[in-house]
């Protein structure tokens, strides 16, 4: 598992120089639905639910906490 993740990371980093687009090629990427978090309010609800119900939290953003959730 760990080796796989490391390999993926290294490949990604090594590939970075060849990746990407020119500024005028960003039409699609600029669409709201292409934002990595296209609905932060919905994400906040989700994180709150799963924080309360599962033993893992965060990862995508700060794990936070801030509730005595049952």
């Amino acid at each position, binding site marked *: *598992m760990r080796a796989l*993740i490391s390999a*993926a*990371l290294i490949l*990604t*980093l090594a590939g*970075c*120089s060849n*990746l*990407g*687009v*020119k*500024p005028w*090629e*960003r*039409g*699609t*990427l600029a*669409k*709201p*639905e*292409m934002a*990595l978090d296209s*609905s*932060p*309010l*919905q994400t*906040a*609800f989700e994180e*709150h*639910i*799963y924080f309360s*119900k*599962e*033993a*893992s939290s*965060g*990862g*995508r*953003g*700060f*794990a*936070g*906490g*801030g*509730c*005595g959730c*049952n």
Partner: protein
Amino acid sequence: MARDKKISRALSAAAATLLGSSAEAGLLDYDFGGQDWDAEAAFLLYSESDGRVSAVAPALQLTRTIDTDESVTLRFTLDALTGASPNGAVPSKSVQTFTGPSGSSDYRVEAGQTPLDDTFKDTRAALSASWTQALSRENTLTLGSHLSVEFDYLSLGANASLARDFNQRNTTLSAGLSVSADTISPVGGTPTPYAATAVDGDDDQRPDNDQNKTVTDLLFGLTQVIDRDSVLQLSLGLGLSDGYHNDPYKLISVVDNNGDPTETIHENRPDSRSRQSLYTQYKRNMNDAVLNTAYRYMRDDWGIRSHTVDISYRLPAGTGWWQPRLRLYSQTATDFYRPYLLDGEQPTAGVDSSYASADYRLGEMDTTTVGLSYGRDGDRPWQLSVEYYLQTPKEPEAKIGSLRQLTLAPEMSAVILRLNLDL
């Protein structure tokens, strides 16, 4: 229109208060009467099966774009919970009686039923503010803070992140720090670890003091544009939580060799927890449909190892879109998860160096979420999601006596409804 102005003024005053006096002068330089604040409302309805927890949560988010490279976001959330939550004790072949946390109310649990504490009721109010500002062409700074208040819990936090663009903005590296200080004021006082709960109104001894917890998180991110249609994100998270981690309302059953409960005691968890996570997300546009995939691996020093996969696919349909979604989560148990303790095995009351909790959320468990969203884009986008959430905790393999005929880790399902609209 006059009403709009009034609301704007009230909002601007609230914003100025939140951001402190130093930001006040700057904020008030702008015209609040116009369309400067972008408001978004959201509503969450969460309802568990079998009369367990129900939650209703309205939220409001206000975003003020001050310049192309500066913005302020404020978020208010209310969270009202009712219903019943498992108290951690095992079911029994006879009727059981428990004393509520306040010590004043007893509740009865029928034979064979999972003990649920129905005295549970809570309202949470949360407020967060963040400010994003470009420091230069490549660097962006985000500062944030949050406040979350419940009658028995208070959380106050601040965070800062710095993002730097490289390679014609195709690569972004970021680093962030978040610190949160939480105060827990257990109803009825802080329970002594492993002390027996009250029987028939006979109060157990509890110091009536507040407990604290400090949570520090570091987050490192890499965002990479792959091509015109796809983007990849990798995040590494490191977290350390220090202080009171017990759930003051969770109990553990002590059972005899026949599997019959002899007493119910309070749990005890370690006073620190360190977490590491790796999160990766890949988003791809395919002829205006959007595929979003995410995977998270998380581990902590309590013994939790978890995998989360989240996949959604957004399909355009006329002026709107549909989005089916699947989330799969799987966790191992913490080292100190004990569905029950055998009589004689329980630590002496007050022993803080030994850990045990029967909270099923710390046990081995798989969960599945399936959902469908429908939304409309345009000037006032909105979206509605309906989701079904199923928790399948692992039933302990070796059970003793009469517990063999009973389910200690029942499945739990919930329906989640989420609405989001731009105002």
